[in-house]
């Protein structure tokens, strides 16, 4: 009887959900260690309680995506904070998003915003090389993955997941299918190691198990801050080269959100210069897309980087097209 009573008490406690309308539910694909402090600051400053669901390294940023898609008919999230724009395009194509023009979005370059305001980019990562600082001939272009001098000495994260997939899809849109497939084939022939994540790739280089790897700038900066013996290289910066691929975080309002008003307040907050500054100075070292935001030492301004000019909508469509190829590869 005591056990039954305890059980019923626990059941009651757990089943009761505090009715609190001053909340916002946000699904977050940006790493929790970086996003949570910002969301806590939002809570303190606005008094709006944030209920968050974070993604895991294991699901590679797709756990909350699948949840958003499965919940389409009865959405639970108000806002989705994605760590790249392609997931935003996928959700847009599935009619899960509501357009919203934030007052803090007007100074963000249009290339980092969806033309009908379904999503807005902010605080970007750049796809960079981390390389062994003792390397005599350092890579300078993504094509160096196919350079025989680096045979068996380079690493790339699994192209089925995360920002690597997006980067590959971007190359497909720029180069065309034939050249891109040839590049992928040469990657294999050059014995490039496939790691499970960008973080692991960066660790391989830091531990001298690999000479260079293509990673996100936040992975590179965090290893640099931990005093690993690596150097950061922005690839393809020459005039006749394609530029570095930029991956902005993106914010979007969910269609049918139960707390749309609070969702908009959260989006405005995250798109502010102050939020971008916080993310720049955090370990993730993400590059602000607003001009005039103070940066930590070692971080380049977006205007100082030759950016790969792509249409993210086209990249998203291409990603879906090349999925079977990537899976076979």
């Amino acid at each position: 009887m005591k056990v039954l009573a305890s059980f019923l008490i626990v059941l009651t406690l757990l089943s009761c959900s505090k009715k609190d309308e001053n909340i916002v539910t946000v699904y977050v694909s940006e790493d929790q260690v970086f996003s949570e402090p910002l969301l806590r600051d939002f809570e303190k400053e606005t008094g709006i309680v944030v209920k968050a669901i974070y993604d895991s390294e294991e699901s590679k940023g797709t756990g909350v995506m699948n949840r958003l898609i499965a919940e389409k008919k009865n959405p639970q999230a108000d806002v989705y904070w994605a760590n790249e724009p392609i997931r935003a395009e996928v959700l847009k194509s599935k009619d899960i998003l509501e357009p919203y023009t934030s007052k803090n979005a007007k100074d963000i370059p249009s290339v980092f915003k969806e033309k009908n305001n379904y999503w807005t980019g902010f605080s970007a990562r750049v796809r960079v090389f981390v390389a062994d600082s003792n390397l005599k001939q350092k890579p300078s272009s993504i094509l160096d993955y196919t350079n025989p001098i680096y045979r068996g000495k380079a690493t790339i994260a699994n192209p089925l997941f995360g920002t690597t997939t997006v980067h590959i899809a971007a190359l497909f849109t720029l180069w065309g299918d034939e050249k891109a497939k040839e590049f992928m084939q040469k990657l294999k022939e050059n014995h490039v190691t496939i790691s499970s994540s960008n973080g692991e790739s960066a660790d391989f280089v830091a531990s001298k198990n690999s000479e260079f790897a293509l990673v996100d700038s936040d992975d590179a900066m965090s290893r640099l801050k931990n005093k690993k013996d690596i150097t950061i290289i922005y690839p393809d910066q020459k005039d006749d080269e394609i530029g570095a691929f930029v991956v902005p975080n993106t914010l979007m309002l969910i269609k049918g959100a139960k707390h749309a008003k609070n969702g908009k307040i959260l989006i405005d907050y995250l798109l502010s210069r102050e939020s971008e500054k916080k993310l720049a100075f955090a370990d993730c070292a993400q590059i602000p897309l607003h001009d005039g935001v103070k940066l930590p030492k070692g971080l380049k301004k977006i205007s100082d980087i030759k950016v790969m000019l792509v249409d993210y909508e086209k990249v998203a469509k291409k990603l879906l097209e090349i999925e079977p190829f990537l899976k076979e590869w």
Partner: protein
Amino acid sequence: MFKKILFFILILSLSLISFLPLLSMLISTFSDGNLIDIFDSTSLLKSFQKSLFFSLFVASLTTVTGVALGLVLAKTKLPYSKLFATLLTIPLLIPPYIVALGWFELVGRSELLFGFFGTFLVHFCIYLPIPLLLTILFLKQIDPKYENAARVMSSWSRVLREITLPLIYPSIILSFLFVFILSFGEYSVANFFRYKLFSLESFVEFSAFYDFKSATALSLPLVIAAVVLLLSQQYFLEKNRFKFDSTYEIEYIDLGVYKKYLLLFLILFTTFILSPILTLFIKALDADTFLTALKSSYEPLFRSLSYSFLGATFLTVFGFLSAYMIEQNIFKIGYIFESSLIALFALPSTIIGISLILFFNTPYTNFIYTTPLIIIFGYICKYLALSTKIAQIKLAHIPNSMSEAATILGASWWHSFRYITFGLSKKTLVTVWLIAFIFTLRENTITMLVYPAGLDTLPIYIVTQMANGKSETIAALSVIMIVASLMPLAFLTKGKS
């Protein structure tokens, strides 16, 4: 009448919680005829064969080792045998990816670890306790008079071979079945060590391509393999079922001169199995790091313990009733019901999670979907087979004649069920509850998909922190998880003593 109403309610509840969500997902999946093309792939077939052989290999080696260790720890007077059993059980309590992480921290990036060997090593470590504990449990069911009689004429080796092992065959078969199913459906370790297994294919369809239907279709071979094994187990056990009245004092084997060598072997073996966990402990030794980790994780920890408490209770009640229904073949659906539970157990957790979302995420069922109840439902879907099977083992040992005698004396079915069936099963049900608690505590895949915002559990918290979190913090959180998981284990071993 009351009996029929009770079990009708049971079937209805379980249908709503688990069968209907999965069934609606399956119907939706196969209404699309193009799914047959998914299986028309040579690489997929190879992946399936590879997974089949891998899991059979894991199940075989784990069962042989576990049974041997169970015999050594239970049937000899080796010092610290309970301690060894407890220590060897630890890897089972921890989410598999944490054990994989521990090996990675210990060994580093090694060609040996990344691939077949690393994946096999983790599977072996985490599933070894299943045959070990089931063997110890079943050895207590053997009446020593059979072994004593045989000992008059034969040596211990022959007695073990021809009396003891045949009497504990149900535990050996059950161990093999559970380890096979768990190993076949486990993808996080294969994902970590980049070893391409069939379970990973289903995960990739789901994760990389948001294709629920293909992911569901790809998971069906897992289910079919599990159900085939179950039917084989049923057939085998029907011919070899022995019934006993109660637990007995185990007859010990005198090890003589081999005692010290066996002790040394056990020390080395246990150290080897626990070395990845010890590595995480060492990494988390900094007090500041540990306290910071504890401060940030106490809420998810509390939620984990609460949800597991509730989940284990539901699993014990449902498991016991389900076991009774199967054993007594109420409504004549014993086989179908049992096969359905095993099928649920074998299904990848990602499929279960999505089916629960699709079924329960409606305005009318928000009271389930937006509360921890949805997590409890996930536990029931995944682990009901486990609690049912363990309860079934006990129920099979309770002779029907006892209930029949009570009925003849005028007792109602309910009185007979409550005071005889339930009365004799109490100790087993405590074990069922503790095992259910352990498994639900470490669960993260279904929880990751269905937990209401802001109500994450400790395994979820650890997994989300792994993305760019400091390795010392991850190690400290893993240690907290391990310690939380050891609490029910302490009760389990105390109960056994």
